[in-house]
């Protein structure tokens, strides 16, 4: 299939990009890596009058650590999550998740900002923003604002981004020495959208969980924080009992959709298995 005809703009700055969107009367899409948008255009699932290519905006690039936060420009590529030393040092969970994101060709083109802005519930990076407690830096006609991940993902493909707003950067609190993290997902083929995925950051002190952040992907309409499982772990020694309690508590966090190939009970079961395995992995390494 061929995309419908569209006009194309390539602004040099965030201000120009916002202006271009406004001029298009809202009938526009920002495009960066294009790994989700281009197939959607080819399938005519989306047909904006304008494509605004933000790939050449220098302000959207860059990886830096500032005052306890790792700042990732929105154009940071998936491959950087895989390879970049600052990400490995300060956002190790992101680096753990990156190899599970599609395939190398897609990781070379796809951007973190694009993935988070699209908010596919089956994608790894949006869920990891929740687990890491990231904040999204958003540019709009009114200026810049920051939205915490917990308030960013609203519903299926719906985020706190208003029409025309542009995700500029992701801010991630740098990992602390007491952090232990783990990521895995269950997929039928390597690189596929997962049947369930889970990322965990535990702040550990002498074998006791002081703070837990757990996020799941592919278990509902949005990436999901497992608050009940976190609460079950907080203050507990990370042993087999605690893991079982967390797995049981996780069932209160989940209400996945039902589909013939993947019934809701199966997603719950897989999420539970995954959580148990990841917690056991952290416990064993401790």
């Amino acid at each position, binding site marked *: *299939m*061929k*995309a*419908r*005809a569209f006009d194309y703009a390539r602004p040099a700055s965030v201000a120009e990009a916002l202006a271009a969107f406004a001029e298009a009367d809202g009938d526009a899409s920002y495009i960066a890596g294009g790994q989700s948008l281009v197939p959607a255009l080819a*399938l*005519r699932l989306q047909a904006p009058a304008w494509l605004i290519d933000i790939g050449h905006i220098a302000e959207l690039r860059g990886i830096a650590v500032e005052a306890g936060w790792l700042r990732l420009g929105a154009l940071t590529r998936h491959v950087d999550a895989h390879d970049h030393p600052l990400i490995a040092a300060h956002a190790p969970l992101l680096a753990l998740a990156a190899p599970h994101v599609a395939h190398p060709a897609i990781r070379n083109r796809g951007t973190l900002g694009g993935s988070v802005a699209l908010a596919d519930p089956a994608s790894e990076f949006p869920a990891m923003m929740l687990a890491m407690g990231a904040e999204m830096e958003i540019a709009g006609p009114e200026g810049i604002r920051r939205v915490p991940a917990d308030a960013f993902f609203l519903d299926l493909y719906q985020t706190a981004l208003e029409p025309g707003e542009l995700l500029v950067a992701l801010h991630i609190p740098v990992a602390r020495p007491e952090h232990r993290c783990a990521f895995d997902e*269950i997929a*039928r*083929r*390597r*690189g*596929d*959208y997962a*049947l369930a995925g889970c990322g965990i950051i535990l702040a550990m002190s002498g074998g006791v969980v002081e703070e837990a952040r757990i996020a799941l992907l592919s278990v509902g309409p949005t990436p999901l924080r497992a608050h009940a499982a976190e609460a079950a772990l907080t203050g507990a020694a990370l042993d087999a009992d605690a893991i079982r309690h967390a797995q049981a508590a996780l069932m209160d966090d989940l209400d996945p959709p039902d589909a*013939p*190939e*993947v*019934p809701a*009970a*199966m997603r719950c*079961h*897989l999420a539970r*298995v995954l959580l148990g395995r990841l917690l056991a992995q952290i416990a064993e390494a401790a």
Partner: protein
Amino acid sequence: MNAPLGSLDRPNSYIGRAVTRPNAKRLLAGRGRYVTDLVLPRMLHAAFLRSPYAHARIVSIDVEAARAMPGVRLVATGADLARLCTPWVGTLDHFKGMKSAPQLPLPVEEVLWSGQAVVAVVADSRAQAEDAAEAVLVEFEELPPVADIDTAREPDAARAAAGIEDNLCFRSRLDTGGIDALFAGAAHVVEEEFHFGRHTAVTLEPRAILADWDASEGKLTVHHATQTPYQFQDLYSRHYGISEASVRVIAPDLGGSFGMKLHVYHEDMAVVGLSLLCRRPVKYVADRMESFVSDIHARDHRVRARMAVDDDGTILAMDVDDVTAIGAFSTYPRTSAVEGNQVIRLMGAPYRFRNYRAELSVVFQNKVQTSQYRAVGHPVACAVTERLVDLAAARAGLDPAAMRERNLIPDDAYPCSSPTGYQFEALSHQASLVRLKALMDYDALRAEQAALRARGIHRGIGIASFVEISNPSPAFYGIGGARISAQDGATLSVTPSGEVRCLISVTEQGQGTETIIGQIVADQFGVAREKVRVITGDTEITPHGGATWACRGAGIGGETALQAARRLRDNVLALAATILQARPGDLDLRDGIVVDALSGAERVSLAEVARIAYFRSDTLPPDARAQLSITHHYAPQGYPFAFTNGIQGCHVELDADTGLVKVLKHWVVEDCGRIINPLLVDEQVRGGVVQGLGAAFFEECRYDDNGQLTNGSLADYLVPMACEMPDIVVGHIETPTADTALGAKGCGEAGTAAASAAALNAVNDAMAPLGASIAQIPMTPERLLKSLGKI
């Protein structure tokens, strides 16, 4: 003069050698010419509006808005094309009582599956054609879709298509007699209900066609990504009323076919008509979304089967009921009944028992048509048989390998026939099993399995014997009235420089047909392989033949090439004898040089013989016959089919908490008779195994109750990828057929025939200690978790 085939120590001994493919470098360099690459002057592009409903009446079609769109040259409906093209019916005479409704390029009154092409738009670009297709307004009146195979067969069921009296396309029964008594008296009876999902070919290159009607000389040229150019030359000629000689079908480079590219597709027939209407070249390339709803699907069988077994594990009888759903039409011209027919006839084929009963019901429903796809019927028959053999082994207290040792047809029992009437010339089941056990180190694997089970690691070992149909004679299609040739033809010429051109009717889809034909010609004629140029796939150039399907390219095409090369060599030696004033029988052609047959002394080069023949015939005596081109045809005349055999082993590890299965390793021992190129045979077998493992674990066209395909994209329809595939070890036994000098049988479907059966047995073996079992493929995590009682 003819050194034994397969002896590798003579000049130009290419038969049996693992030589590389001459066309591989060209394709890797991006110099392939696929239909999609072709651009003709004044070429237009077609797109189709497709039915959103599985079954509906067409109330009205309004094309006015679409006609006015930019770049649009033609908007054609079913009625427009029906004026040009005669209808077709997908039945064969030897399938008694078979029925199917007539088909046209585009429907006139009724749509019969979701995704069926309804209106064609031809425009200057594909994008413009798609834009205009969106502007065509069709009013549909929804009709009840037939989706369930049981309710479809009830007397008052809604019909899948108008014009058929019920939804039963074809029914067949086989009965040797004696079944009920054997089952009643058997020590053990095992039974199971099996489900085989629908899947589809997913060729790397989708279907593509470029039809070019030249009104000035009344000539139709069709560039067509097909396996069978001659079949389509005949069909375009007859259905569009153009003389056969005025229709030229060219099959250029193809990116895979697997049986999918030899059926009549409605879009393809439509594109020919569109070119006639526009008087311009019209191209259509199916995109992947269209492929899923218009390429043939395959399998989709529910089989209830049981096996009676003696105390000591001797198989006594099988009793089978197969119901298969095929879509609303039977596919033309090869029908949609061949798969079911082969399912019931291949059941139990490797084993000695004599009593068998089967019933086949082929049922219409409102889905994409099914038809022949790689290893037609084999994986179904093999999985049912082999799973029952494993169940019976467990009942009789035998190891699965020992069960097969007891029941396989002995290697010294040939010729013999199966209870279903297949005649076997010579097979090697026992030798294959011995070889497989050695390759797998079967006993060590069983010991390791037991040790790992104690540690909670669930590994499974599955084996599956198989018989494959190859080298079909006219008993396959010709007898049923289809104009599908069982013979092949080759034209061989010596060029003035002493090289060889071989024009042959078998075709190349990426598997290496041209390579093996070149090997055979060079070997049998007596020149270096680099001196032979093989040309295929053009009805105006290559002689008429069956082309490539049903594993016939090597066995029938190869024998054609062999006989042709020997004839041409005789002509060259006769002419050289005239030139040298020698006797032809005293000469031989080796590496492009005519030599003294006994001493090997060089006498004259082939290039010199050719130079004299073409440029200095004045120096030859008046009665010299310089025939340096010959055309030769060969049709199989012995056994109706050359059956092959083999056995596969699969080793898996089951994650019982997630339902994921990792295939650790896979083994195949196969016997395709004379091996022409071991490298290509191994790759054919490995590719076939991957398709079989795809069926076992991943591939399934899933429909909802309304007849809508719910996973028609490569994001949702999972094909096996390299990461999930194991190492595949291939071993060979060679039992050449005595029907031909070459002795080759087919190998292209062997991998697919038994891979899913071996995998099914392996997964069941892994689950057995957990008290679970599965009788359905693909074995998805959901199905495995359910059978394990986890969800």
